[in-house]
Structure formats: structure tokens, C-alpha cells
């Protein structure tokens, strides 16, 4: 055999073997992972440059990463943040499987760096950097790490959803604006993103998948299981990412840590509770802003989630059941305020049956379920609300007061109308007086007249408000001009009956 032929055959053999290896590589990686044969995991979804860098640098990656980390720390001490995104990118790429690196870098950007800026748009940019680092890169290289899902969900629930940051309303508004674009500036419709029919729907679906890394089909599943959810609010996204984490954990049971699952479930029921409190987005046409209202339709699922969590978390069972009882008490009160008396009665009965030996009013030992009717409970709760310091609860109470006030006016009960309005004023004044001056921007209420006008607007809305006749009565009693748009013809229609129940 000639030397040239021999070389050619050897080269051919090398090509064939290389080709063969590439075929078995996936199953080798899978077996290696399953059998725990190596501590170093193969890098998933990595671009060639990163894959090469991580292999070529070997053990030196840690050293370089440490040096970069020290530089990042020094720069942060000197208030120089413009390099932080780059340094975080390099540090995480050098240690792509070290989950804590992703978590610390993302947390640092979303929590520590963001509040260093006085302007809210600057803060929002850093919160987004933190979210993007986890969602776009962290999950890309570690798609089965429940801790990253937990952290991502927590950012939505806590950083954007809670009101600890002065800029929290700005974050919520910006997130709502971004989601509003995804849903075509109308009420969210997941079906059109799952099965897009038009070019616009296709583009929006692609944006959702490619930019926000969200799966509309899974969103729908989450909505059906935990919702209905308002997808323009952060709580829905906290639930989505926590649910994704749970799904991945179920698919990879060997990587599952029980405590991580408990945390993910906790995020879900806590976010559902938040969704109940303020899971309805109300646009304010006057100020081009938005406000929240309670999502009363979600009550059965929130209650079920609490009960499931109490079952799953044996060690925290008492704590969760206490939270469940508190949730039910609030839910009943909100339902009553929104004039859903039958639902309120149903949940009141449920509360009394489930917790017969627990008092309903804090600090009143004789307020056991056997001693109070639904009406007595709600009236006592109004007294508590006047001393309440939860913005969401007071906001909900005020909306309920105005709703009752305008319904009373429609029914010619002008004394009730005036009474509800006076109570609303009393609650608003009491709440605002308790908030320290520096906290008014963060947890203060908007002006009472704005809330009043918004509720009236909802009543007078030709599409979602009360029937035309009721609107007309309200306009007359408030001395407002008649509607400019004529009502639809109601030939042979029965007269509208306005009932107080």
C-alpha cells in the first residue's frame, strides 16, 4: 500500500470516527449526567466562542473570573457602574454552570445597583439587566436549574411587584407597557399568540418567544391552572417562572431539591394572593396612568393554592393556614364591598366551617364565627380598615365605598350615597395621615377625587358600565349632561330592572 493511499485512508477513518462521535455525543452526555460520572457538566446552548473558551481555559477560568469579580467589586465601591453589565457577562460566561454566580450578579444589578440611581428610568434599566441576565443567559446555559427560576420569579414578585422601592410604580408601569405591546394594546388574548392568524399576531408571538423567552402555550396552561391572571402585571410572570421551575424539576427529578420546590410553590401562592389583592389593571384615561383593583375571580384558586401549600409544607403548616384564614377574611370583605353578596356568603360559610374556633376580628375574643353574621363581620371590618396601613386594602375599600355610593344614588338612596362618600373621605384621610411624608410617593394613595372620578367613569362606561338607563339616572342626579352616543335599539326589550341584590 502506497504511503499516499495510507494517509488518505487514515484521514478518511478520522473523519468517519469524528462523525460517529458526534452522533453518540448526546447520549454520552445524557448517560454521564444520569450516572453522575462527572462533576463538570457539558455546556448547553453555548455559542462556539464560549464553548471553546470554557474548554481552553480549563482551571484558569476560575482565576480570571475571580480577578474580574474583584474589579467589579472595586468599581462598584467607586460608583462606576457603566462596566458592570460587561463584567457580569464575562464572569458568568467564565463560570456558566456555577449557579450562585448567576444569582449574585443578577441580584447585584437588580437590587444593589438599581437603587444607586436617582432617576427611575435608570433604575428600571438595571432591574431589567438583572432579569435579562437570568432569563436570557442563565437559563440558556442552565435550563434545568430551579434556583434560577426561583430567583427570576422572585424578581417579578418582590422587586417589581412589591412596593419597597420608591420606583416600584414606575417598574410596574414600564412592564405593563411592554406587555401591552405584546398583547397588541388590548386585553391579553393568549389564543391569538398560540395560533397567530395575522402578520401582527405572528410578530407579537415571535417577540414574546424570542425576547421575553415565554411560551404562550405554557402561559395559557398557567392561566388556566392559577388564573385568570393579568399578564401585564408582574405577579403573573412570577407565577409563570415559578411554574416553569416546577415543570423542569418534574422533568429532571434527579436534580430536584425539596426545599427549592417548596420555595417555588411559595412564590406561586404568594403571587396568587397578590393577584387577588391587586390583580386587575385599571387604566386611568385622565392621567394616562393605571391603578389596580382586586381580582375577585381568582379567589377559589388562591384558596386551593394555600391549602395545597399547607399540605406540602408540613413544617410551615400552621403559618400557611393562618395566612389562608387571613386571605379568606379579606376575600369575604372585598366580595361584600363589590356587592357580590352571594359569593361573600359562600366564602363566609367556608371560613366558618374550616376555622370554627378562630376569631374573625383581630383583638376581639368574642368574634368567633358562631357569634357573628356576615353583615356584622363586614361592618366590624370597615372599622378595622379605617386603621389599616396596607395600601392595597385601603384602595380596595375606597373603590368599594364609591361603588356602593353610586349604586345607592342610582337607587335614589341619597343618604347612603353621602354616607359612603363621607366614609371614603374618612378612610382616605386616616390612611394618608399615618404615612410618613417621605413614604407618600411610595405607598401613598392618589387623590380621593381621582379615585372617585375613576369609579364614576367605570359606571358611566357605555361598554363595561351599568345599563344605559342606570347611566342616564346617574348623570341626571349628578347634574351631568346626557350621553352623546345613543343607546342601541331595544325593541321589545323588557324594561331594565335595577336590583340592590
Amino acid at each position, binding site marked *: 500500500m502506497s504511503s499516499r493511499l495510507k494517509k488518505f485512508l487514515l484521514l478518511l477513518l478520522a473523519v468517519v470516527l469524528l462523525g460517529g462521535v458526534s452522533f453518540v455525543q448526546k447520549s454520552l452526555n445524557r448517560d454521564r449526567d444520569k450516572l453522575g460520572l462527572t462533576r463538570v457538566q457539558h455546556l448547553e446552548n453555548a455559542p462556539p466562542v464560549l464553548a471553546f473558551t470554557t474548554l481552553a481555559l480549563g482551571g484558569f477560568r476560575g482565576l480570571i473570573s475571580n480577578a474580574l469579580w474583584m474589579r467589579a467589586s472595586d468599581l462598584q465601591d467607586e*460608583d462606576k457602574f*457603566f462596566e458592570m*453589565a460587561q463584567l457580569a457577562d464575562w464572569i458568568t460566561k467564565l463560570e456558566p454552570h456555577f449557579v450562585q454566580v448567576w444569582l449574585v450578579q443578577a441580584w447585584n444589578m437588580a437590587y444593589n445597583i438599581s437603587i444607586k*440611581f436617582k432617576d427611575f428610568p435608570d433604575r428600571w*434599566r438595571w432591574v431589567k439587566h438583572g432579569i435579562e441576565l437570568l432569563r436570557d443567559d442563565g437559563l440558556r446555559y442552565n435550563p434545568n436549574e430551579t434556583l434560577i427560576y426561583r430567583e427570576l420569579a422572585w424578581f417579578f414578585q418582590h422587586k417589581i411587584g412589591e412596593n*419597597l422601592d*420608591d*420606583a416600584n410604580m414606575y417598574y410596574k408601569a414600564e412592564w405593563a407597557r411592554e406587555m401591552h405591546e405584546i398583547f397588541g394594546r388590548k386585553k391579553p388574548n393568549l389564543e391569538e399568540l398560540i395560533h397567530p392568524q395575522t402578520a401582527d399576531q405572528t410578530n407579537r408571538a415571535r417577540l414574546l418567544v424570542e425576547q421575553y423567552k415565554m411560551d404562550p402555550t405554557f402561559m395559557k396552561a398557567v392561566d388556566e391552572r392559577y388564573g385568570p391572571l393579568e399578564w401585564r402585571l408582574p405577579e403573573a410572570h412570577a407565577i409563570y417562572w415559578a411554574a416553569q421551575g416546577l415543570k423542569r424539576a418534574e422533568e429532571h427529578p434527579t436534580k430536584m431539591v425539596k426545599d427549592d420546590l417548596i420555595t417555588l410553590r411559595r412564590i406561586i401562592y404568594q403571587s396568587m394572593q397578590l393577584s387577588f389583592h391587586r390583580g386587575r389593571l385599571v387604566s386611568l384615561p385622565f392621567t394616562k396612568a393605571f391603578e389596580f383593583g382586586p381580582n375577585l375571580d381568582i379567589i377559589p384558586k388562591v384558596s386551593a393554592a394555600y391549602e395545597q401549600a399547607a399540605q406540602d409544607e408540613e413544617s410551615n403548616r400552621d403559618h400557611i393556614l393562618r395566612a389562608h384564614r387571613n386571605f379568606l377574611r379579606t376575600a369575604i370583605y372585598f366580595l361584600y364591598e363589590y356587592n357580590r353578596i352571594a359569593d361573600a356568603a359562600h366564602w363566609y360559610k367556608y371560613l366558618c366551617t374550616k376555622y370554627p374556633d378562630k376569631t374573625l376580628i383581630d383583638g376581639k375574643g368574642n368574634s368567633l364565627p358562631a357569634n357573628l353574621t356576615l353583615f356584622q363581620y363586614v361592618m366590624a371590618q370597615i372599622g378595622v380598615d379605617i386603621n389599616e396601613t396596607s395600601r392595597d386594602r385601603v384602595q380596595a375599600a375606597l373603590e368599594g365605598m364609591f361603588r356602593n355610593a353610586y349604586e345607592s344614588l342610582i337607587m335614589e338612596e341619597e343618604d347612603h350615597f353621602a354616607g359612603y362618600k363621607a366614609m371614603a373621605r374618612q378612610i382616605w384621610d386616616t390612611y394618608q395621615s399615618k404615612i410618613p411624608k417621605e413614604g407618600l410617593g411610595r405607598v401613598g394613595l392618589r387623590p380621593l377625587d381621582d379615585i372617585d372620578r375613576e369609579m364614576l367613569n367605570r359606571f358611566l362606561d357605555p361598554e363595561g358600565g351599568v345599563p344605559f338607563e342606570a347611566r342616564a339616572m346617574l348623570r341626571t342626579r349628578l347634574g351631568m349632561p346626557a350621553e352623546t352616543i345613543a343607546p342601541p335599539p331595544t325593541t321589545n326589550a323588557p324594561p331594565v330592572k335595577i336590583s340592590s341584590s
Partner: protein
Amino acid sequence: MQRLLAITWLTWKAAFRFRLFLVVAVLLLGAVVGLPLLIKDDGTARGFTQILVTYTLSAITALLGLSTLWLACGTLARDIEECQIQMVAVKPIGRWQIWLGKWLGIMSLNAALLALSGASVYGLLQWRATRLPANEQKILRKEVLVSRGSVLPKNVDKKIDAETDLKLKERLQKNPGIKADIAEARRQIREGIKAEYQIAPSGWPHEWKIDLGLAKHSLHGQPLYLRVKFNAAEKSASGTYQGIWGIGVPRKTPLWRSEEMSLAPDTFHEFEIPPIFDDTGVLTITFVNLNNTALLFPLEDGLEVLYPEGGFALNFVRGLGIIFCWMALLAALGLASASFLSFPVAAFLSLGVLTLALSSGTLSNAVSEGTLMGYNEETGRTGHSVLDIVAIPVFRAVLQLINLAKDFSPIDSLSTGRCITWTQLALAFSQIVLLLGGTISLFGIVVFTRRELATAQGNQ
């Protein structure tokens, strides 16, 4: 002079012969063009420009610094080892002229390379700035691509000392014969008085008066910037604190009031204020603390007023001037090492000195803690060693020497739009080139002059 220029020319020829000039030029241009494609900024035009200035100028400094050291060591050591120097030394030329000629050659090469890469960075910055939206361009031209001077509140150290002495005297008179650590008592009284100057009490305004000096004549209609930093004793739930800033004096100047600001402690905040100052050029600044806790604005860096002083182009040139001074020092260091060492050892020594200078943080820590043994965070105790008696004064002296060159930060100033004054440039030239570079050069020249060149030939 002709002899010096002849050696300079030979150095240039050597740099071209070894393709060093070409390689370094390509690397520098590659860094200027390539870095903007690789780096990830914070998402703002301002951040991008800052990171661009920082990374490109740092890359230029590092590349030029290393090539300068390499060339300085190589050009002299190799000439000696390969016996070419014997051909030059026998000519009617002094040894000092050979040494200085080589230094001039390296520095003229550096000047050309620095001018080329500096012009590229400047051009790139200007080009990228013109491609930004109008509002971003405005921010860049006002805050980054500028040269801003700064004014601090009047130093009140003497006033504090005088008040401290008076108070101490009063207390000693009230309590005659008291046995106390007078130095400690004085320190505590001084801290108390100092705090009064720094604290903005809850719900109360705190006022600063800033004398703009001669700058007042050019600042009418020009935007000013306030750079502030404060500490808080108590942590707030949101992590930030509310406050309102005011400029002006009632019934004397127009008044301006900021919106309520949400500010984080322990960090610098910079924002624009109107140029409202009185006829004497005094700017009155008021901060109203809206929180339930007192805030403390440190006297050292709690408040600073920045004002436009000149253009970015000249500032950029001055910045490059300081980098050029660093290169002069490195060239002197490399040549001095090569004056008595072989090329590899000279290169090793020079890089070792450079590394020591760059990692002076450890020395600085030891000096500030007063010991080599370090500070134990858990016990709150500082260790001691007998070596401290010698090591700490030596470290202190070394640090002072290093800081003569390190105290200048042109890249930082350029990326934050701070002015590099002519005085700073002159100081850099005096300290880095004349004092440090001159001393090293003198040492190198003396050693080179006294060296027996014929004994140093290599294996060939």
C-alpha cells in the same frame, strides 16, 4: 544634538526593522476598532461612551507600556550582547548621548503611536456621538465629552480645630485636675464638632456656600452640576432617602427648588442645577432632609459643584500627555535595566517593578493598618510583628514613590468629563518625567557609562 538625533534615527530604524512599529500600530488600531464591537455597556449612550473611553485608552496604555518596556530593554541590551554597541561607542559620541538618543527614539516612536491611536479614539467618539439621537447627544456633550472643573465647599478644618481647642479648654477649666486621655478627649470633641458641619437633621435644611471664584465670570447661563454623597445612620425600608435641593438666597437671588428626590446613601449622585449665584460669585445650596433620620454629608466628598471649563479635545490631549509621561518613565526604566543586565533579566526586572507599582494596594493596606499581620475582622484586632518596625516605613517610602506616578488618573477624568488642568499636566511632567524618570535615567546613564561593553558580548 546631531549625535543624539543620529541615535534616535537608529532606534527608529531598528523598530521598523523588527516590525515592532507596524505590529504595535496594528494592535492599537485593532483595539480601538475591535473593543467597541466586543464590549457590553449599560444601555445608555453615556455608559457606552464612558466604557469606550475607559477600555480603549486602557488598552492603548497597556499595549504601549509593554511595547515600550520591551523595546527599551531590547534596543540597548541586544546592542550590547550582539556587540553592535561597540561599533557605535568607538565613534565620537558620549555614552550619555547613546543612552539619551535611544530614550528619545523610543519616546518619539511612542509619540507617533499615541497620536495615531489617540486620534482614532477621538475620531471614533465623535463619529459615534453624531449617530446618537439628539437628546442623547445633548447629554454626551454636556456631561461626558466635556471638560468640567470643580469647586468644593471652603475647607473648615482650621475652624473645627479652633472650636475644638476652645471647647477642650472650657472642659478642662470646668474639671481641673481630671485624669483623662487628653488626646482621645480632643479627638472625640473634634468629631462632635465636625459632625455639626456635616449633618442634615431630620426635617431641617442644611446649607452650603460655594465660592465659584473667577469662574463666576464665565458661568452665566451655563449649566452647573451638583455631585453629592451622604451616609445615613439608619437603614430605610426602600434603601433610599427623600430630599429636596434648593439653590439661591431669598430676596437676594432667584430661587430654584428640585423635585423631591429619592437618593441612595453611600453613593455619588450627579444632577444639573441652574447657575444661580450672587454678585460675589457665591452659590448657596440648601438640602431639606425629609426623612425621619439625620443624614451626613462628609466634609471631604459630600458635595462638589462641577462647571463647564473647556472643550473635550484639549482635555483629551492633556490626558494623552499624562499617558505619554508614563511611557517616558517606562522607557527610562527599561533602558536603565538594560544598562547593566542582559535582555531577559532586564525585561524581567522591568516587568517586576511595573507589577509592584500596579499592585500597590497590598502595600497601602499594610501602611494604613500599620502592620504586615493584617486586621482580623472577627476579633476587631490588628496583629503585630517585629518586622513592622522596618517594613512599614519602607513600604510607606515605596508607596510615596509609586504614588508620584500613580496619583494621576487621566482615563478616569476623561471618561467622567472631568477637567485635566495644565497644572496637573505640568505636575505630572515634573513628578513622573523629571523627578522619577530623571533619577532612573541618571542611574542608567552612570551605569552605562561605567560599563565595560566588550565583556558583555554574547555567545556569537
